[in-house]
């Protein structure tokens, strides 16, 4: 068992987002967290990543509480949240250089080919603030090719990607799952054309 959540409770303000959520992720699995806006999809992902404390319940990574093994957990985790962590003053290459270095795969050469595949050709050395939101998102997603984390937690990775971008991402997911990794993501789109089995966890909007 790679990641396991037991009875996770989250209360934001006066509202209970979810109560007693369970999830068990095995290597090679892709999980989609579904639900309407405000159901707490992002909060759930942030709890799984260890950014947000849960009001109750535990999250275990390889059988140990993530709070106890946070260092090991974070070295095997890749989290790309709603805010992607791309510094707007730096170029795509400089941003990726940083993340590659801290993930233990320092870049030897600028990853032009990868950026080209992601539709960022000609934009590699322009400060990210001059690029569109979608293009900045692609820079963040390029990190998926530049690390060897086993667990990916991605918040709406397909937003503002075009068809070929989505295709490329699907391929990468497939590779990752085949090599024993796992993916947890949220998405508004149905993942029908993904050539792997998609496990789903549905959240419902709680009015209380």
């Amino acid at each position, binding site marked *: 068992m790679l990641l396991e959540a037991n009875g996770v409770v989250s209360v934001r303000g006066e509202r209970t987002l979810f109560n007693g959520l369970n999830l068990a992720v095995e290597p090679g699995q892709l999980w989609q967290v579904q639900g309407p806006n405000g159901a707490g999809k992002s909060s759930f992902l942030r709890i799984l990543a260890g950014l947000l404390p849960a009001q109750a319940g535990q999250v275990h990574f390889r059988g140990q509480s993530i709070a106890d093994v946070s260092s090991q957990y974070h070295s095997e985790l890749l989290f790309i949240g709603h805010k992607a962590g791309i510094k707007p003053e730096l170029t795509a290459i400089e941003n990726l250089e940083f993340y590659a270095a801290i993930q233990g795969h320092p870049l030897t050469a600028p990853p*032009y080919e990868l950026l*080209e595949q992601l539709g960022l*050709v*000609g934009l*590699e*050395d322009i400060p990210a603030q001059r690029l569109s939101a979608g293009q900045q998102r692609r820079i963040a997603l390029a990190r998926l090719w530049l690390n060897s984390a086993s667990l990916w937690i991605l918040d709406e990775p397909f937003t503002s990607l075009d068809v070929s971008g989505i295709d490329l991402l699907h391929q990468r997911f497939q590779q990752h799952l085949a090599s024993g990794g796992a993916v947890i993501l949220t998405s508004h789109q149905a993942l029908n054309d993904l050539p792997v089995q998609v496990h789903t966890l549905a959240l419902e909007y709680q009015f209380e």
Partner: protein
Amino acid sequence: MQFDSFSSFIAMGGYGMYVWSSMLVTFIGLGALAIEAKWVRRTLKREAQAQQARAQRIQRAKRASTQ
């Protein structure tokens, strides 16, 4: 010629420190402006080269996609 020897020229009647530091700062200031202008021009040249490389990359990508 107001000074009879080089050392008296450097000494400036005991005010050497003041006179020469003034001259130094003045010419460093003006020189820095000139050097900065040259330096900016060089970064602009690099920018133009980067632009060229970028255009080539885009063209290559276009060619690859039409094939």
